């Protein structure tokens, strides 16, 4: 039960983060979009650099204060490089990831995002069914 409560509370915090991005900056809190366009000169650079600083910086603080919140991966570096490459390539073609499509897009009832979410969850499930899924 407490696992689900934490999941819900964590999710609400994510929703709050996205709320600030929208209400204050008028922007979508989609991680890949922010990352892919971080240095672009379209007026959103302050938002994107600030957001990523907060994201990575908070992760750094948490790694010291509450390291138990992080899991570990047992995979080798080449394996992780391939996985990372696929994530980078895929999300850029799809113009979004679990944050952009899964949270922000779904909240807007975007058909594009529903299809994206179904696609990446489907592909993820097939992948884990084949590989066994041990991180």
């Amino acid at each position, binding site marked *: 039960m407490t696992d689900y409560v934490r999941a819900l509370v964590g999710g609400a915090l994510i*929703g709050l983060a996205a709320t600030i991005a929208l209400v204050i900056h008028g922007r979508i809190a989609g991680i890949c979009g922010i990352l892919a366009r971080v240095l672009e000169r379209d007026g959103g650079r302050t938002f994107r650099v600030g957001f990523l600083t907060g994201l990575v910086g908070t992760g750094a603080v948490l790694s010291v204060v509450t390291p138990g919140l992080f899991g570990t991966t047992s995979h080798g570096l080449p394996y992780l490089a391939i996985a990372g490459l696929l994530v980078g390539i895929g999300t850029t073609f799809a113009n979004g990831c*679990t944050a952009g499509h899964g949270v922000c897009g779904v909240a807007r009832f975007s058909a594009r995002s529903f299809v994206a979410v179904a696609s990446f969850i489907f*592909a993820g499930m097939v992948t884990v069914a084949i590989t066994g899924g041990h991180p």
Partner: protein
Amino acid sequence: MKAFVLAMLSGALFALGLAVSGMTIPAKITGFLDITRDWDPSLLVVMAGAVGVYSPVVRLARGRRAPWLDGRFHWPTRNDVDVRLVAGSMVFGVGWGLSGYCPGPALVSLVHGALPLVVFVCAMLSGIALVRGVLRQGAQ
């Protein structure tokens, strides 16, 4: 200054949300994607929490002309479903299923995860740059 600090707050809350919800534990992600063994539905609960808070905000924002610190909202413009969306999402899904990491959790875990996460994130950035380069060429 205000804009930067508030953007940092947004990123900080996002990171906190991911960590508190367990999404920075790859085993919870692969557990969600593992339908043949012990299924962990946590990811759905996280999404429900996020969408539950954010969805009403979107509705309210639609009725407004501008956000607080910008002249206009930057809503996504595309509504069509195309091959790129589906194929791209599936490729992403494979990488996600292989590692248990997607962009957000990977960045939040960067410092804690050290070299393995640095490799993942660098590879991810390479993939992003590669595709953006390809798409830009195609548009010319």
